[in-house]
């Protein structure tokens, strides 16, 4: 599925990613953990094509196709989804309208027919029900005046609706109380499937109690410093990132 080799990337003059390599096969969930400033968010932006992040070396491919030469929207159409750490507010555009426009843009790019209004609505009701969301929230301008937790839930709602293949979750647990965290985690777990892969970026081990990863990677100073099973997350929780940060 996703294959990253020796990735170097910079923001303005500062090199943030310094030779990062990672293989994420279909059907697996990998967690990326690391201290502040290690390059976790940069990795998510480089993979999804945000402007201002310059790749100086290395490759990232999705099922063999070069991701880095594609525009952000082209990557989205190929099934790359980023659940934002800080979702943006879109004044004047109801969440439903936003999502349907996005969905149809993706369908068009893939040469698929548009989703009908009734099918869309049916699915939206179903997914909103799973995530225990108030359906009226979807009629309000996207994320405007939403609480931190509501915004995160809205991200997962969008993710479930767009059914991407590569799911990148950037600090999805921040801003969620324990009940909301369970609901969101259930939503994410429901999307686990043999033809999907997930990259779960997180600071804390807490989220990984609910979304069980197949592998845990430690990202420090712009590269993968260690890789292990779920137990590595517990070790990090106990001992912190110090030894990796120092080693780098």
């Amino acid at each position, binding site marked *: 599925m996703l294959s990253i080799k020796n990735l170097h990337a910079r923001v303005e003059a500062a090199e943030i990613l310094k030779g990062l390599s990672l293989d994420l096969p279909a059907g697996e969930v990998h967690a990326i953990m690391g201290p502040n400033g290690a390059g976790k968010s940069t990795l998510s932006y480089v993979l999804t094509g945000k402007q201002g992040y310059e790749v100086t070396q290395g490759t990232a491919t999705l099922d063999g196709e070069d991701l880095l030469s594609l525009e952000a*929207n082209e990557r989205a159409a190929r099934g790359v989804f980023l659940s934002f750490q800080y979702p943006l507010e879109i004044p004047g555009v109801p969440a439903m309208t936003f999502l349907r426009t996005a969905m149809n843009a993706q369908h068009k790019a893939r040469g698929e027919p*548009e989703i009908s209004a009734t099918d869309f609505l049916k699915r939206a009701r179903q997914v909103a029900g799973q995530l225990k969301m108030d359906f009226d929230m979807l009629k309000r301008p996207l994320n405007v005046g939403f609480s931190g937790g509501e915004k995160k839930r809205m991200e997962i709602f969008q993710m479930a609706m*767009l059914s991407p293949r590569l799911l990148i979750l950037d600090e999805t647990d921040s801003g969620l109380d324990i009940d909301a965290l369970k609901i969101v985690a259930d939503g994410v777990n429901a999307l686990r499937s043999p033809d999907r892969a997930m990259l779960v970026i997180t600071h804390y081990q807490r989220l990984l109690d609910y979304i069980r990863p197949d592998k845990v990677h430690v990202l420090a100073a712009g590269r993968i410093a260690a890789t292990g099973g779920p137990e590595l997350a517990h070790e990090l929780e106990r001992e912190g990132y110090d030894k990796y940060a120092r080693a780098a």
Partner: protein
Amino acid sequence: MPAVKQTVDHVESLERYQHGFITAIDQEFAPKGLSADIVRFISAKKQEPEWMLEWRLAAYERWLAMDEPDWAKVNYPKIDYQDSYYYAAPKEKIGPMSLDEVDPEILATYAKLGIPLREQEVLAGVQGAPKYAVDAVFDSVSVVTTFKKELAAVGVIFCSFSEAVREHPELVKKYLGTVVPASDNYFACLNSAVFSDGSFVYVPPGVRCPMELSTYFRINAAESGQFERTLIIADKGAYVSYLEGCTAPMRDENQLHAAVVELVTLDDAEIKYSTVQNWYPGDPETGKGGIYNFVTKRADCRGDRSKVSWTQVETGSAITWKYPSCVLRGKDSVGEFYSIAITNGRQQADTGTKMIHLGEGTRSRIISKGISAGRSSNTYRGLVSAHPKAKGARNFTQCDSLLIGKTCAAHTVPYIEARNGQSVFEHEATTTRLSDDQLFYVMQRGLSQEEAVQLLVNGFVKDVLQELPMEFAVEAQKLVAISLEGSVG
């Protein structure tokens, strides 16, 4: 969002300015330049009565003594008023015509612009879709007005201004120049001397006009100005919704458009006036050509509890100078102003409104959305004033500017004057730049950069778009998209 989707599809199939073509027809011009004789020529061409000519000549005398205003935040070379034609008309007989008599080239022009001039075509449209009557003004004359019979059946007069002068002189005499006096300002005064054609509407007491009325202005002739004059009167308890649309060919020289619009509402009457202005904006790179849109629009809410609502979508013109205003004279009268002004390329706009509270308990509301892109400049200029007698006057103003890119400018110049202690004026203003983070967020969900801009802009202007009559809202949304094409990246 079907509308956004539609917009996106539509934009892909369009040129940047889609109305820039020229219609080849035989035209008749007045000699170039401006003089008392030209004023007489125009009046004679329109077979006007003596009093109308006198009125024009008096205005011309006043104009000679006036100076062109220079306070607006716009720059343009001095206009040579002698280097323009003040009358251009298709070579046809004067006066109302049936469609069979109209030059097929002109009919083709309106067809190309998507303006329905054949009543049966409107009627044959989507079932249940609201129909609307059209007055089509081509350069200096009105070529056709539709649905006149149906409107006359309920007593509504909808005709060209020239026809009104001939057929309804008592109404024209009673109201003309009572809202915008001939000497009001330089451009209004010029218009009063040389006005060509425009629309006249009278809705009798208690009548709710059964359909939308609209006027479609088209400048075609080169080196000519357009000076239309519109007068709308809603008598006691009457209601009318009126829309004007404007386009012009792409030409390298600047053309002057100096219109005057006067609205009068008597007790309990309401006029809803919408404008979709899409004059040729000039070349986006060089700034060459385009229309100078120097327009005076004013409503007099003369009657108690009367209401006027201005809605404008301004996307065209090289320079815009206009301030649709409401004089709230009647007790408890209401004025509203909803505006979207978009500038791109080298366009300059200085636009806003005036809400003048004279009567007790008068209320007004201003929602202005300015969008600047390219190397354009966009100024909101507004006046809200309450006179000593306007006790309990209320105003709410929301004035938002959106900047796209780094080379454009937005200015907000609100004037607020309260001359009594019992008025409540609220003013909110924001200026934001379309953020890269927002764009990225939308693109990450699958929209191209162009589509993302459109979605964000549509959200920004939504409060105003929803004030437009439904069938025009779709049109306006398309226009917004086209105007901002290529503004990012």
